[in-house]
């Protein structure tokens, strides 16, 4: 046991002496959560809209007012004809245009087809379809209102947004960011710290010591577990104080799950380092190999349900996906283990498998 204590002391000294890394590791998550909590918005607002209205009348004015009255749109141009639209779109001065038929109000009143053409800049398809659906939504609600006056059949949807009524982006992204930052920091730190021992040759010394492989791994990882946990605490506090992200469920459960997730990420780092011998390989593996998949396949920005099935399948292997589900469940829905046990079990199983695989590779290196 005294050998083990010695290893812990050695790790602690390593970390304490490298002030710069320690600072980066503690403060980076805090800065990033602030930055991205503000920066990441998937909803589209302030869409620059042009209206082409050849013959203004009461109904086109009413519709124009409705567009101007929403937060989503900003009417920047009103044009008498469509001729000037092309350069406006090309230069990006407008993102969407609404074109009314000539004699729109008269046609509408007489029951003739009154056409509205919605043109969007779809070079960015995700925002493109959002802009399109917002515009159609505005027109349809207008249509419903005039139809009701005329005594036509209407079905009125009463929509409720559960778990995030204001649809604030920060409520969604902050739990995701916690997962993202933790994965990369924990996986990177362990991967680098273990391969550095190999590269500088000190791993040999550790291997001939009376320590067992598992003890070496635990000793190396323990310090990073503590650092990771401190950053979870800081980030959760920050989420509450700066972004007022709700915490509906139990704080204790959230912290416990955070600890479990750090363990999973750490064991991923151990596995990467046990398979590589140079810091460069470990680095590319841990950073280039995990960064984009964690952003894209964790459900942190893009909904996993809409991906093609092979990707949905692959996403199950991304630990961050499960942690995002757990963190959002606890923070936004206020559910406890009675709903979250499957995700928790999966994270546990992943950790066990990763640690097992890493320890095995480690033993092989002794030979």
């Amino acid at each position: 046991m005294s050998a083990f204590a010695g290893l812990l002391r050695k790790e602690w000294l390593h970390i304490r002496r490298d002030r710069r890394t320690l600072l980066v590791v503690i403060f980076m998550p805090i800065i990033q959560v602030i930055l991205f909590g503000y920066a990441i918005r998937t909803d589209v607002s302030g869409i620059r809209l042009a209206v082409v209205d050849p013959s203004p009348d009461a109904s086109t004015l009413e519709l124009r007012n409705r567009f101007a009255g929403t937060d989503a749109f900003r009417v920047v141009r009103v044009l008498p004809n469509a001729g000037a639209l092309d350069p406006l779109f090309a230069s990006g001065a407008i993102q969407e245009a609404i074109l009314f038929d000539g004699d729109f109000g008269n046609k509408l009143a007489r029951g003739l087809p009154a056409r509205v053409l919605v043109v969007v800049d779809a070079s960015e398809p995700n925002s493109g379809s959002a802009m399109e659906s917002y515009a159609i939504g505005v027109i349809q609600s207008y249509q419903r209102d005039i139809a009701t006056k005329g005594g036509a059949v209407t079905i009125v949807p009463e929509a409720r947004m559960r778990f995030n009524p204001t649809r604030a982006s920060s409520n969604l992204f902050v739990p995701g960011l916690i997962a993202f930052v933790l994965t990369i920091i924990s996986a990177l730190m362990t991967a680098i710290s273990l391969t550095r021992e190999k590269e500088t040759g000190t791993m040999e010394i550790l291997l001939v010591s009376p320590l067992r492989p598992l003890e070496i791994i635990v000793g190396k990882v323990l310090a990073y577990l503590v650092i990771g946990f401190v950053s979870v605490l800081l980030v959760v506090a920050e989420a509450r104080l700066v972004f007022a992200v709700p915490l509906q469920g139990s704080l204790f459960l959230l912290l416990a799950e955070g600890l479990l997730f750090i363990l999973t990420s750490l064991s991923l780092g151990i596995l990467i380092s046990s398979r590589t011998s140079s810091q460069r390989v470990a680095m590319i593996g841990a950073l280039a190999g995990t960064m984009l998949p964690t952003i894209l396949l964790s459900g942190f920005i893009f909904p996993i349900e809409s991906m093609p099935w092979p990707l949905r399948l692959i996403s199950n292997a991304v630990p961050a996906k499960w942690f995002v589900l757990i963190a959002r469940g606890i923070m936004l829905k206020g559910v406890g283990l009675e709903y979250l046990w499957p995700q928790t079990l999966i994270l546990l199983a992943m950790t066990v498998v990763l640690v097992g695989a890493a320890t095995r590779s480690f033993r092989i290196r002794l030979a």
Partner: protein
Amino acid sequence: MRRVLILAWTEVLHVVRDKATLAQVLLIPFIQLLVLSNAATFEIRNTPLYVVDQDHTSASRGLVTRFAASGDFDIVGASPSPEVANERLLAGDVTMVLTIPHDFERDLVREHAARVQLVVNAEKGMAAGIVQFYASRILARYAAELQPSVGRGTAASIGLETVPRRGAPDLDIRTRAWYNPTLDYRHYMVPGILVALVTLIGTLLTAQNIAREKELGTLEQLNVTPITRGQFIAGKLLPFWVLGMFELGAGLVLGRLVFGVPVVGSPLLLFAVSAVYLVAALGVGLWISTIVETQQQAMFVTFFIMMIYLLMSGLFTPIDSMPRWVQIVAELNPVRHFVAISRAVLVKGATLREIAQPFLVLAVFAAAVFGLAVRQYSKRAA
């Protein structure tokens, strides 16, 4: 020049001899490009829907059939109990609950207006808004369909493809999606993801490079050679620049063949911009390398910068929706400019005139970063 080439050649040898790095550098970007380009979509299909039908009439069943037939929704369960629906929402396997109240059909016949309730799991962010839009579209169409059977003579036809009827206010909404009429997000994601991957790997390799020489002590040996600082930085940059150009080119060919990414503008122009861009991106890596002491530090700083690069590039989320101050910060992000240029050239067919401004920003950025790296690198051991 000869010195630059010799230094560059040692770098090439380093990478080529390290089989594991070589495999990573060549495989990771292309595998991820192929796989991940499919992931970045907000297109919502097969939303899991739970139906609480408390009316049990032909009108309510008709509505449920419309939802099932739309292709936008997948009915994963139905019961008259709101409690079960709530359970499923909490468990997260249902994204929307449609509740049809008791008097749905009666209200439709008597008052020509009925209510239904949609509860959307807003945990999914933007997807929630789109799901709600799909649902109201189905409701509007169904209302229009019911018109002749329950309505009187005067009716509004609602829907996107409607047949005009006499005496009804008839609004015909049509839409056009310019520049990408099929709304294929992959055309737009592939160039972006490619840029992100090449930048990630290039920055990592260069950032780690000088830090490694410092750790191993071989930098001292280089310092006592007659090489100048500018030559040193150029020699370190060159091999990774060639690698980056190769990966961009190969990735683009792959994107064209596999995903049918359009190449509307001039590929030559894009390569000219890439050449400048890579100097900027790799220059940042080298600059990191000169300020840090160990490879671990190099990696963390790279990670920090890459995260800002990626999440503020407009690649995944629109820059237009970010707050003003973030947009100003994002101006400093070379990835953002290059992503915008590559999309403009490939998808919109922009020429040099349209991209002149971001191109200029990139050029200034590249020159500044290169100068900074040269200045920062001192041939003296600290």
